[in-house]
């Protein structure tokens, strides 16, 4: 305990330099998780609703921030202690290995913050520390009722109003939005098509913004709708420049498709290992399904490790990152199919498995969320393999 505390002080004082490598840092995180009573209380914990889980895990975020651990891997400008994304990847991996659930806002951070650092450092400086500490929650607001896969057809409008803007329209499928304080939102500021789009950071707690959660098939309120009626946007809330929204969104997607896959594979290794602790009469179909799931998981893990390394070197990822997303879909579906098969009828019947069941049901969305499987396949075919665009 003493040794850990002194090392920890070192982290907060010295930043990423305290650890020679992400692996050393992971060992430090692991020692902290094992020695801290607040962390130990979260091991294996599950909550009956997403909202209850969000409250408990925001406490986790606060502790990890105050103790310095979650600040590694983020630049000082944004409240971090320096170091590259590999440190964040190591934190997720270590939390999963200790069966502590990863707070959903960490996933949002992975997607939204890198884009702020590049395209709106003033906003990163002002808001990201609170986001990292769990004092604030943000959502991503891209899709609309008539603009899903065809995102560039979105219609939510931003109109100039004095120094700032006014936003009117409707967003949907926005993860965690009913718990969120702000949203990174893609709006139309100009002509139809890709060129008329702008990315902004909008406050959700204001007149003209109404948020309604949507209950998903697993019973939880994973996402929601946002109704915008003349909502106010201050002039300094544009991410990137006016009309640059599509490019900013594409920059964001490389993180959504790369870093997210790494985070997920850590979770899946733990879930699969936990399923194997149950005594069941494993038939040949069971072994085949587990073997297949594991092989796909291994492919996902090595591919996304490579991608996180590339992101850490600040390489710009191209359309090839859709390969990561497609490997994620294959692995996610295969792992949960194997778990369900392995646990047999009890999986569907026994209340003991309620939490796992809801995770399983959520996995059915893997080929849909974050850009559908069909869109990703089209990107790989046309942009990676060079097949002709559709007529």
């Amino acid at each position: 305990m003493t040794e850990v505390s002194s090392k920890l002080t070192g982290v907060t004082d010295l930043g990423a330099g305290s650890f020679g490598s992400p692996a050393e840092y992971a060992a430090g995180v692991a020692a902290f998780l094992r020695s801290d009573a607040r962390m130990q209380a979260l091991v294996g914990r599950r909550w009956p609703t997403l909202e209850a889980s969000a409250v408990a895990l925001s406490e986790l975020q606060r502790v990890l921030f105050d103790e310095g651990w979650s600040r590694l891997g983020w630049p000082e400008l944004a409240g971090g202690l320096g170091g590259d994304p590999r440190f964040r990847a190591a934190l997720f991996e270590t939390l999963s290995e200790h069966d502590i659930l990863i707070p959903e806002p960490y996933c949002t951070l992975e997607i939204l913050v890198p884009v702020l650092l590049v395209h709106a450092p003033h906003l990163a400086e002002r808001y990201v520390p609170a986001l990292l500490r769990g004092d604030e929650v943000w959502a991503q607001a891209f899709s609309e009722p008539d603009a899903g896969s065809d995102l560039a057809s979105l219609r939510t409008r931003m109109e100039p109003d004095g120094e700032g803007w006014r936003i009117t329209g409707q967003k949907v499928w926005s993860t965690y939005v009913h718990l969120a304080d702000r949203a990174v939102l893609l709006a139309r500021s100009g002509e139809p098509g890709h060129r008329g789009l702008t990315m902004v950071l909008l406050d959700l707690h204001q007149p003209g913004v109404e948020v309604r959660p949507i209950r998903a098939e697993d019973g939880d309120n994973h996402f929601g709708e946002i109704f915008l009626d003349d909502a106010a946007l201050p002039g300094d809330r544009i991410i990137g420049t006016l009309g640059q929204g599509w490019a900013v969104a594409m920059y964001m997607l490389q993180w959504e498709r790369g870093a997210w896959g790494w985070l997920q594979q850590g979770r899946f290794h733990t879930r699969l290992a936990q399923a194997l602790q149950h005594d069941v009469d494993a038939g040949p179909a069971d072994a085949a399904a587990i073997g297949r799931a594991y092989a796909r998981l291994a492919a996902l893990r090595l591919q996304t490790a490579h991608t996180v390394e590339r992101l850490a070197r600040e390489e710009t990822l191209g359309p090839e990152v859709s390969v990561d997303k497609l490997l994620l879909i294959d692995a996610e579906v295969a792992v949960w199919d194997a778990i369900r098969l392995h646990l047999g009828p009890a999986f569907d019947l026994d209340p003991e498995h309620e939490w796992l069941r809801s995770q399983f049901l959520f996995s059915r969305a893997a080929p849909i969320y974050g850009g559908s499987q069909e869109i990703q396949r089209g990107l790989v075919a046309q942009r990676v393999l060079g097949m002709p665009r559709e007529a």
Partner: protein
Amino acid sequence: MDLDTRELLRKTLRPVLAERSDRPLSERLDELGWDDVVADDAALAICTLFETKGEVLGAGDALGPLLARRVADAAGMPEAADATVVLDGFALGPLAATVLVPGADGRVAVASSSSFDAEAVEPVDEHTQVCRVRGSLTDPTWLPASVWDEAVAGGRWALGAELTGIAHQVVVDAVAYTADRRQYGRPIGSFQALQHRLANAHVSTVGARGVVEEAARTGSAWTALVAKALAGAAAEEACTHAQQCYGAIGFTWEHSFHRYLRRSYILDRLLGGWRELEVEIGRRLLADRAVPKLGGIA
């Protein structure tokens, strides 16, 4: 080995491996100064060799010499390096004076080939040289299972590399064909149905390649097992989708496609087909009740 060096090696290897020649592959590689390439980075050199062999459907048995060399190294028995490997009653290549025959208990026998009858057979792939072998082992020296396991691990990732080479080439060729072939006034490659098939094949190939390279780098038998399972499945997926993209022309003798298909059948079966290997992976995980993680972020 950096990416540029690897690309250069690939370019150098392509004509050598594509050559239809009776000279043994080892002799042709020697002329390239292959030993120096291997000394620099054995894992990636061998990986690139097998991948390229897959891409150009290189003739000549590379697997037999690789297995024999690994047995020789693991057992400290240099003479075993020239032996012919016999798997499931088939010799990989012409019979040398010595044979290596894995036994049912996991050990591997080193024995004289003098008591063996070998009969050349025509396998599904005409450029794979195998003989059916009959006879019993006389005075074999049995090497421990660890020696054969070591050889199998190397063989599996090498075969994995060759299978991903096939999968890659099959997709590249199908992409080219579907860009040229027009129906309904447009290239058939613009149809989503075909795009998605080839995209799937590409994704599985990239996923498999990553695990193959990890297995080559680490030498882990477990990783090699997973690598071969993924690569075998990727090759089958690529061939299935490519064949559909070709339509009837891909079903002709004249078209090169069936050669890739045939070769992939042989390679997938050697040292465990992907369906069997998936079951094997599952059985081991069920027995250990643990899910090991491969590699990590460097």
